[in-house]
């Protein structure tokens, strides 16, 4: 049986996304895939002990989509997957709003979990997005976290 390439869906947009619709798209892709894992990142009301009122997300148009596509293709080579969706929002976001969605379907759960985590770990360290935190009357660019670099490095083999 020939394994076909997974369905890849990459979106960078200001608008919110519909989690239910994205799940449905993964679920409908093919009934040979028994496992769906989704990750969603939300704007938290606190970060590093500071109260946050929102986020501003800047990106590098063009490069972002390219990097995310490359990541999805790398995942498709490492694991046998049915479909992958990566959505990242840009612009102004309020507390508890959705920032990012990564969803993966595969035949078996370990592949879906690993691919989803791999995509998030590399998105965090490689995709050209920059977050600015909005606090009471001030703005702070978020600095990179060493834990994110370590998370990405653990996939090197």
């Amino acid at each position: 049986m020939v394994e076909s390439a997974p369905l890849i869906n990459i979106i960078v947009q200001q608008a919110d996304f519909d989690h239910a619709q994205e799940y449905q798209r993964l679920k409908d892709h093919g009934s040979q895939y028994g496992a769906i894992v989704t990750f969603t990142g939300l704007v938290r009301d606190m970060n590093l002990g500071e109260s946050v009122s929102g986020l501003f997300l800047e990106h590098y148009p063009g490069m972002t989509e390219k990097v995310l596509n490359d990541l999805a293709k790398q995942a498709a080579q490492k694991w046998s997957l049915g479909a992958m969706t990566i959505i990242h929002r840009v612009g102004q976001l309020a507390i508890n709003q959705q920032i990012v969605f990564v969803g993966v379907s595969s035949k078996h759960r370990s592949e879906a979990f690993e691919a989803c985590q791999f995509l998030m770990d590399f998105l965090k360290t490689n995709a050209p997005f920059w977050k600015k935190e909005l606090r009471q009357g001030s703005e702070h660019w978020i600095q990179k976290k060493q834990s994110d670099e370590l998370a990405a490095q653990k996939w090197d083999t």
Partner: protein
Amino acid sequence: MKILFFGQLREQLGVAELLVNDGPDTVGGLREILASRGDLWQQYLSSKDVLVAVNQTLCDFDTAIHEDDEIAFFPPVTGG
């Protein structure tokens, strides 16, 4: 060549985009020329954290560049 700046670096330099004619041959050479624009440029562009992409692909400062290239400088990425 088209030079882009993003994130905190864009705010620190106060510039999002520059056009440079007859630019140097490497990313490193370009950084030197830009750094000579003033103290702020010197300070922020020489940070070891600055990343660079040529034609939307991350690369290092030895990378060769050409007249039609798009070169972007930016701080470490923090999306997700």
